[in-house]
């Protein structure tokens, strides 16, 4: 086994509400939804009409600019509604479940016995292709492209993140099938990153046909972007694909059974959850099924995903995102705090060493809320971002080049290597409260526009 790669920079944010390692079957939801907003730069075109019947794996919309990329229903039932937001942008495509799970059937058999085209075709038809995303830009991979490598990160270091070793337990075989499928898609390597901390044997340690690397260090060590930069950094013109481990399992099952299996394990976490634990549920489930009798009193923020890269959703009407294996509920911080900036701060989390908690309570679990803790300012402090970004990139200079819309400079400063989640900690620690991840996404958008149009 390869050596452990040590990540020194970063920050582990310890919070209250880690999920206990037990899982329960979530009650079946009445409705399920696929949310086009889960993918960057996607313009959906709806296929069935309202009230049309769909099966598990029936396409419900496709990408306007890549019609071959289809998104399918996770359950059988009828197309109930198309919820739109500002400027009639489609937010959710909602399916009403009939509880029957009638499946569509797809190609079945040993992945090695199929050609690349057949595999691509089956992934596209089943709706699992959108689970494969490319770097740069973190958008859906192009089926005709051959990536230089494929990355799978089998551990998550984000705050309150699910323990993927627990999640993937007993799925090793399906995972291996999934890896065998992915092997047909690239001439390059498949990199599987495992947690480098004790114990050294992990659920996926025995996976074959991959290069296994172990990473050890604080968040963002588990981010696939960091791992790519250490193992096979992205240069101009190069493309790397990334797949999440639960999606690899789904891809494996597709070829093993010939059916799309949308089941996922989701950790429900956070200080406002009565009993944080794991739920076995189905992709795109109404979040209310996971939060039933679980929410504590008070004004809460429900997040699909983790606190550093999740999306706020409605606790009653919202749906879990396609890629999220975690739901986090934390208190809203919309109250004033008298002389808050002067207090010693025993209950405050900070990278700087200016709060009592840093000195006296290094292992404290915090009950963090959504307050910004200050006002937005120009860039003043230096060296903060660099402490939490374990990549050879100058983040402040890059952000300034994005603000100046200097495409050339963005490229030279390494924008291709980054995704929002990689800079999320920079936004967290920023004394000037700069919206770092939003600026980065704007930069990635204009970069993509420049390169691909």
């Amino acid at each position, binding site marked *: 086994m390869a050596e452990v790669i040590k990540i020194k920079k970063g920050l582990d*944010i310890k919070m209250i509400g880690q999920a206990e390692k037990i899982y329960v079957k979530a009650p079946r939801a009445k409705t399920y939804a696929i949310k086009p907003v889960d993918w960057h730069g996607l313009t959906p075109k709806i296929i069935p009409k309202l009230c049309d019947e769909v099966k598990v794996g029936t396409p419900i919309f496709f990408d306007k600019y890549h019609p071959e990329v289809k998104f399918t229903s996770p359950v059988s039932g009828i197309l109930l509604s198309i919820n739109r937001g500002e400027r009639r942008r489609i937010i959710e495509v909602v399916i009403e479940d009939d509880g029957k799970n009638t499946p569509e059937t797809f190609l079945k058999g040993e992945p090695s016995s199929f050609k690349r085209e057949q595999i691509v075709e089956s992934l596209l038809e089943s709706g699992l292709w959108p689970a494969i995303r490319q770097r740069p830009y973190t958008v859906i991979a192009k089926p005709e492209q051959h990536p230089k490598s494929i990355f799978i990160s089998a551990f998550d270091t984000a*705050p309150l993140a699910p323990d993927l070793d627990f999640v993937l337990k007993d799925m090793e075989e399906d995972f291996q099938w999934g890896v065998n499928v992915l092997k047909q898609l690239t001439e390059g390597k498949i990199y599987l990153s495992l947690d480098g901390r004790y114990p050294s044997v992990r659920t996926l340690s025995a996976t074959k046909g991959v290069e296994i690397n172990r990473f050890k260090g604080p968040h963002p060590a588990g981010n696939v972007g960091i791992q790519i930069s250490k193992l096979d950094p992205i240069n*101009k013109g190069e493309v790397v694909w990334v797949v999440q481990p639960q999606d690899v399992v789904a891809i494996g099952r597709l070829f093993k059974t010939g059916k799309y299996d949308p089941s996922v394990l989701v950790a429900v976490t956070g200080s406002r959850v009565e009993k944080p634990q794991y739920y076995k549920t189905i992709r795109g489930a109404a979040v209310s099924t996971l939060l039933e009798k679980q929410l504590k009193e008070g004004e809460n*923020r429900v997040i699909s*995903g983790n*606190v*550093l*890269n*999740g*999306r*706020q959703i409605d606790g009653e009407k919202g749906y879990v995102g396609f890629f999220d294996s975690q739901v986090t509920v*934390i208190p*809203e*911080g919309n*109250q*004033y*705090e*008298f*002389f*808050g*900036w002067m207090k010693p*701060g025993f209950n*405050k*989390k*900070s990278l*700087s*060493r*200016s*709060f009592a908690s840093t000195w006296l309570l290094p292992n404290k679990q915090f009950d*963090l*809320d*959504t*307050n*910004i*803790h*200050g*006002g*937005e*300012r*120009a*860039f*003043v402090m*230096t*060296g903060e971002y660099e402490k939490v970004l374990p990549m*050879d*990139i*100058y983040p402040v*200079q890059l952000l300034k080049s994005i603000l100046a819309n200097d495409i050339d400079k963005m490229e*030279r*400063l*390494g924008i291709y290597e980054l995704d929002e989640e990689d800079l*999320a900690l920079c*936004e*967290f620690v*920023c*004394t*000037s*409260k700069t*919206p770092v*991840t939003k600026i980065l996404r704007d930069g990635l958008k204009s970069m993509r526009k420049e390169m691909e149009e």
Partner: protein
Amino acid sequence: MSSLRRFVDKIKPPFEKGGKLHIFLSGFEAIETFLFVPNKVTSGRVHIKDANDMKRSLILVMIAMVPALLFGIWNTGFHHFQALGTDAGFWQMVGFGFLKILPMFIVSYVVGLGIEIAFAQMRHEEVAEGYFVTGMLIPMVMPVDVPLWMVAVATVFAVVIGKEVFGGTGMNILNPALIARAFLFFAYPSHMSGSTVWIAGLTDGTGVIDGYSGSTILGQAAQNATTFVNGLGQPYTRMDMFLGTIPGSFGETSTLAILIGAAILILTGVGSWKIIFSVFAGGAVMGLILNLFAVNTFMELPFYEHLMLGGFAFGAVFMATDPVTGAQTERGKWIYGFLIGIMAILIRVLNPAYPEGVMMAILLMNVFAPLIDHYIVEANIRKRLKRAKVVAN
């Protein structure tokens, strides 16, 4: 507390957009956010934020300057009564020093904050906290006997020309407090150097004992004096230099007090230890080099005495570390600090017209800091391009 909050909420409406007092919104907000951390919540994909903010960071810089400030207050009184030849108690010295410095602080803060608030209102921004620190630095780098109107003029110049024309806090190129000092140094040299301005009451001269000289050690060294003596003719010891019982600008004399401040900055992580360390290292190296080629007293001065004299320590700890005007890359900080140290001692020793080389050195390196960063970042870019080419082959 909540009653105060209710009161603030009650008087707020006229200041908001469309209200009668809207032109005072920035000022109102400055006071409101001083009392209460705002209730704004996150809206993007990062849902939690670090508890640290600009107010907290800058208040720590101010706390770090307090030891030097307190020592300066006492030292002002101490030298004043020494010059008069009267015996005074500890509290008498402190009281005198306090009353001497208080008007300078008031002038600095009232003038500077007034301009800041006006500009913030013009730009429809919140008032930036940068002036908290600048307003404290300005009096601390002035000779005690400088007239108040000069402090006011220098403050106006520093804030308007040094900062606001560039776009406010975070956009300026030069350290505003140093601009204030440099402005007075060139506009009114007789009030900023010489042998009388460093001790309260000496410029005026009433009641001062005959033959009392208020020249600084650096001033004496520039005159090629073989021994350094205080106003009464007694020789200075190294302990005097370290503790700071010597004449000089108000806050700069005590190396001990400044080192306590440095410890606070480094422990809380607000000030860059790389810059502080490398300024001292640069100064020491230059001091040693000059010793090798020494032809006069100044060049023979041991390097560690250089570090304790004049504004060297103060500049290294509180001025060079300004994150806005200093180098911003971590590697750049080493170079930036080291060059400040080198230049400070070089200017100080080889150009007798400017015994205060630190101010010049920091301003000079402020100008070069973006260039240093540029080369550091270019190196990173080249590395990336090289990696791409290797793959392409």
